[in-house]
């Protein structure tokens, strides 16, 4: 037992680190989910006192920080870790030890954030967690307004996980750039590898600015600098620019690998090649490029002036174009295909619909005057969760149902999977479709309770009613994982009759990944092996 633990702790194998990333992500998903459930309980009806106001502030701060930095990022880079080397036919990442470093930095940062419960106010009193919100606007974060150490734990946690994430991103770029198998040209890489290359590039460009802003905040808090100290002439707006220059592309860093999952799974379960590979790749790179010039659409209400507002409104709408291209790619892939509605495919279908809705509310919010009305309302919260749950979480589950057999050698139960899927679809839509309406009726985010006469009460009750369904779905999923690890049907090398290189090796793959690689002469090397009479190459 101890030997197994030791093996996992000291490992530098990309597959083990990938699995550890994903498991860590799910631990934090459960923690962040419990925080969300507590908030929904508190808001279910006017005037409840499930949690006091202070605690509510801490809950939404930790929920946001946990879900973005400790669930989203580990999942994205965990899958990247596991899949990228297998998909491009390499034995590991370029820098295996740097990879382990990145993972353990993340674990340390996560532990530091949750240690704030104990250490936030120096162990006297009841202890505390940060209560500044996940984007921690200045000058609230200055020493004068949040004394004690809770904010510092938030700050250091993000700084430390950020360093690990940048290290892993650089690692992935170096791997994709220099370690592809013979024949695996850039134009033959799976779309998922393209998405990881894009988000790794984005990470290298946009995470260091967040690190810089956190260093400035540390200097303000500990050495008396005035970067964001408004009383000494510092600018609160500057923090918003720095944070959202990171924060908005970050949403795409989380989301774009989800597009990659869909681009791998939908063709396999439609029994067709992906429609418009080149446009998908260009759209991915386009999203990456444009998403770095949209950040100030989070700031329409700070008074930037008409010129800047127009610029950011237009650039934000522009992101809709490559994203729309992708939706058509996926639909056209399914069109006329022999569809197999396994659980992974079901999650992709729900993703297509829900992500489209999320994109449409995104276009609405990009219109500056519309945003003036609804910014900081539950409409924004609903939009954001539609993107990250309806879009990202659903593709993550699709990916787990799809690649779990490869990672473990066992199939997940389809029966439990369907329960998981339908409970999550119903629960998610119940909660987050409904959540749009109190926002339109003027309910601001981050309030711990509200008066009874606003017409928000029933809507909030319905919103909360979706929570137990989603919780049950996640519990069924966790049970499915644990159960299938022991009792699942053996998977074999290629249970889905898929085409990319990871299915060419055994399940689970050996430490060295591939004893021999099939020749790579097209985008679907395994198809070519199975159909030597009709290889893909001439058609591409």
């Amino acid at each position, binding site marked *: 037992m101890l030997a197994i633990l030791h093996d996992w702790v000291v490992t530098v194998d990309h597959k083990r680190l990938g699995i550890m990333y994903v498991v860590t992500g799910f631990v934090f998903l459960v923690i962040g989910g419990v925080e969300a459930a507590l908030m929904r309980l508190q808001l279910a009806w006017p005037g409840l006192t499930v949690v006091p106001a202070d605690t509510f502030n801490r809950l939404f701060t930790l929920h946001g920080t946990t879900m973005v930095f400790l669930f989203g990022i580990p999942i994205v880079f965990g899958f990247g870790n596991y899949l990228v080397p297998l998909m491009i036919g390499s034995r590991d990442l*370029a*820098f295996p030890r*740097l990879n382990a470093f990145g993972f353990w930095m993340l674990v340390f940062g996560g532990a530091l954030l949750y240690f704030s419960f104990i250490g936030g106010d120096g162990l006297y009193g009841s202890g505390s967690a940060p209560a500044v919100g996940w984007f921690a606007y200045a000058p609230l974060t200055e020493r004068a307004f949040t004394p004690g150490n809770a904010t510092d734990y938030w700050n250091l946690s993000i700084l430390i996980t950020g360093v690990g994430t*940048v290290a892993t*991103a*650089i*690692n992935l*770029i*170096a791997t994709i*750039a*220099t*370690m592809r198998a013979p024949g695996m040209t850039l134009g033959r890489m799976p779309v998922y590898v393209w998405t990881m290359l894009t988000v790794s590039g984005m990470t*290298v*460009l*946009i*995470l*260091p*600015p967040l*690190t*810089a*802003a956190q*260093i*400035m905040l540390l*200097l303000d808090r500990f*050495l*008396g*600098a*005035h*970067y964001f100290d408004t009383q*000494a*002439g*510092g*600018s609160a707006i*500057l923090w918003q620019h*720095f944070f959202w220059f990171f924060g908005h592309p970050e949403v795409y860093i989380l989301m774009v690998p989800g597009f990659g999952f869909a681009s791998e799974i939908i063709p396999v379960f439609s029994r067709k090649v992906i429609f418009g590979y080149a446009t998908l790749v260009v759209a991915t790179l386009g999203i990456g490029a444009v998403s770095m010039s949209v950040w100030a659409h989070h700031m329409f209400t700070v008074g930037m002036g008409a010129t800047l507002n127009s610029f950011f409104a237009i650039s934000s709408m522009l992101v809709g174009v490559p994203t729309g291209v992708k939706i058509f790619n996926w639909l056209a892939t399914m069109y006329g295909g022999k569809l197999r509605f396994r659980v992974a495919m079901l999650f992709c279908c729900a993703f297509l619909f829900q992500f489209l809705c999320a994109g449409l509310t995104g276009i609405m919010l990009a219109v500056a005057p519309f945003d003036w009305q609804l910014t900081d309302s539950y409409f924004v919260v609903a939009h954001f969760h539609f993107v990250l749950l309806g879009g990202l979480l659903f593709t993550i589950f699709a990916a787990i149902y799809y690649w779990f057999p490869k990672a473990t050698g066992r199939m997940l139960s389809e029966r439990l999977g369907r329960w998981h899927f339908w409970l999550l679809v119903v629960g998610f839509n119940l909660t987050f479709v409904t959540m749009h309406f109190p926002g339109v009726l003027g309910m601001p985010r981050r309030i711990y309770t509200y008066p009874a006469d606003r017409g928000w009460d029933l809507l909030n009750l319905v919103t909360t009613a979706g929570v137990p369904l989603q919780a049950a779905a996640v519990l069924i999923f966790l049970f499915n994982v644990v159960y299938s690890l022991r009792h699942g049907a053996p998977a074999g090398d290629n249970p889905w009759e898929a085409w990319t290189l990871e299915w060419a090796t055994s399940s689970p793959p050996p430490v060295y990944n591939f004893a021999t690689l099939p020749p790579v002469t097209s985008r679907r090397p395994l198809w070519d092996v199975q159909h030597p009479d009709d290889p893909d190459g001439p058609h591409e």
Partner: protein
Amino acid sequence: MNSTAARGRAGVIGFIVAEMSLFAVFVVAYLFYIGKSATGPYPREVLDLPIVNTVCLLSSSITVALATRALAAGRIARAGAWLFVTVVLGLAFLAGTAQEWRRLIVERGLTIGTNLFGSTFYPLVGLHASHVIVGLVMLSLCVVFAFSGALKAVHRERVELVSWYWHFVDGVWVVVFTVVYVVGR
């Protein structure tokens, strides 16, 4: 192609891009706060052009390039000598910065908390100086290895990568110099 070398180059390029992004934000913050200090001392009153410093640091880029060239030609001792000169030039730069800071803090009373100029000046110049220190640690190790005999011609790719980092640190100084001592003064 030697794939270890290719990996190393890709990694260092990625690292340098990330570092550029980090510096860019400190530079933006400095530019944003130019002329916004509510109280003195102001840059015009207290900053002198660090000409000697700049000459030392920029010429160290040349010496480190000479070192890698000598190593590629298999002349280890010559490479070690040039690396040593690079370290000395880097140390001279750091000494100059230390002297400047001592003068600003002790004689002119400018600290990080005095005004916005101090708040943005020390972190920007200090961030660069800390990168100089990291570079000097790596270069000093190369010097030690050169004279202990551990450094061989096969290591030229690695020393080359250290030199890339050092060129980057030099390049950042050109930006910092322009922003702090030319534009901001």
